[in-house]
């Protein structure tokens, strides 16, 4: 089965972020989007620990341990950047000032419920960071994840079985198989990896989904 590569997924997300947007990229796969933002757009990256206008990683030897991202990796500040304290930083999320955030996920439900902070395993030490604030805060919440678990189960589910991060908060899901919008009338596939039919995508996903991948009319599958 064909799959979008991680770079292709990141590039696809990058193309959907408009000029002038304020964006928070989550830890892991979403961080790759920073390398794929269209060069002709001015997009301002936010990091929860108090920086707007985050730039790329510094060259080796130029790291400053007072200048880090949410993953605690050294970064740079672009001309025009600003620093602020934590309450302001999370006010930017909760207050609806961020245009978009891109998050990883364990599961997303058909209603847009997000599970990405805790497996619920008894011996796991829970940690949430800013995930719950981002989930309910940004104007658009995009999820990037593999479509299927290693066991071949869909990570897009009727109901999340992992503890949720936020309810009805995801707007769009980018996977290695498809791009799927979460709408009030259900999931809508808008892009699909070449060589995969909508019917096969719907079968693998196992939840009701509409087809708008062909540019033609809408088809339904369950």
């Amino acid at each position, binding site marked *: 089965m064909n799959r979008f590569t991680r770079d292709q997924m990141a590039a696809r997300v990058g193309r959907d972020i408009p000029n002038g947007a304020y964006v928070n990229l989550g830890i892991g796969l979403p961080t790759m989007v920073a390398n794929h933002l269209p060069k002709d757009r001015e997009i301002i990256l936010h990091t929860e620990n108090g*920086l707007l206008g985050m730039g790329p990683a510094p060259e080796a030897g130029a790291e400053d341990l007072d200048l880090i991202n949410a993953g605690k990796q050294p970064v740079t500040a672009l001309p025009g950047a600003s620093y602020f304290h934590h309450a302001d930083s*999370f006010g930017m999320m909760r207050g609806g000032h961020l245009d978009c955030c891109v998050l990883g996920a364990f599961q997303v439900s058909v209603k847009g419920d997000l599970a990405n902070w805790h497996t619920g395993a008894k011996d796991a030490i829970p940690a*949430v*960071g800013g995930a719950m604030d981002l989930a309910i*805060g940004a104007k658009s919440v995009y999820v990037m994840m593999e479509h299927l678990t290693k066991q071949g189960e869909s990570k897009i589910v009727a109901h999340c079985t992992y503890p949720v991060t936020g309810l009805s908060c995801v707007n769009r899901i980018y996977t290695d198989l498809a791009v799927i919008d979460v709408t009030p009338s259900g999931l809508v596939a808008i892009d699909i990896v070449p060589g995969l039919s909508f019917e096969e995508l719907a079968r693998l996903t196992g939840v009701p989904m509409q087809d708008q991948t062909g540019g033609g009319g809408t088809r339904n599958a369950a």
Partner: protein
Amino acid sequence: MINKIVRSAEAAVADIHDGATVLIGGFGTAGMPSELIDALIAQGARDLTIVNNNAGNGDTGLAALLKTKRVRKVVCSFPRQTDSHVFDALYRAGEIELELVPQGNLAERIRAAGSGIGAFFSPTGFGTLLAEGKETRVIDGRNYVLEYPIRGDYAFVKALRGDRWGNLVYRKTARNFGPIMAAAAKCTIAQVREIVNLGDLDPEAVVTPGIFVTRVVEIPVAARTVEAPGAAA
């Protein structure tokens, strides 16, 4: 004459009592007031509640304090990191209590304490495990969770420069929790890289006005090297 300058970290933390709640600034090691923490370890207060974004990295700073087993409870958003082995072992052994708080609620609860807010409704965490048992309300069609302030008996913050009135400026993303913690404690102790004369800080650029700061101690350069960054927020 007002003079908040204290001669040493040891003198700055000398009166911290057993059972105190201490707000400790920093995000990972950026902005962590390690020398004040070291002084608290030497001072010996126990049965402490510590509020920080994390639960220690490596074996120094906050992790070293936890290792003394004088911390009863940690309030934080992200304890589990690649280098949080000290906390992990205590938690698995049932030797430390954890209150896990979404990071934005943690920040706003601290801010609320410093601003005299009795409680507030936050949309963050609604419908999740972390809001279980909490009061909720629908406001303008949206779901909110009631959250209460987090006050400190003491706050430890790390800043770049300070003066004898306690005015502070910070450095880059090491600012993080410093300004809100400074306002939320009965006694705020700032460790600064450099103490400057009154008037040397541009009033337009002061981040924490001195009214929020009780003691200022100069720690010229980081006395220790900071470990390599750990994983995840």
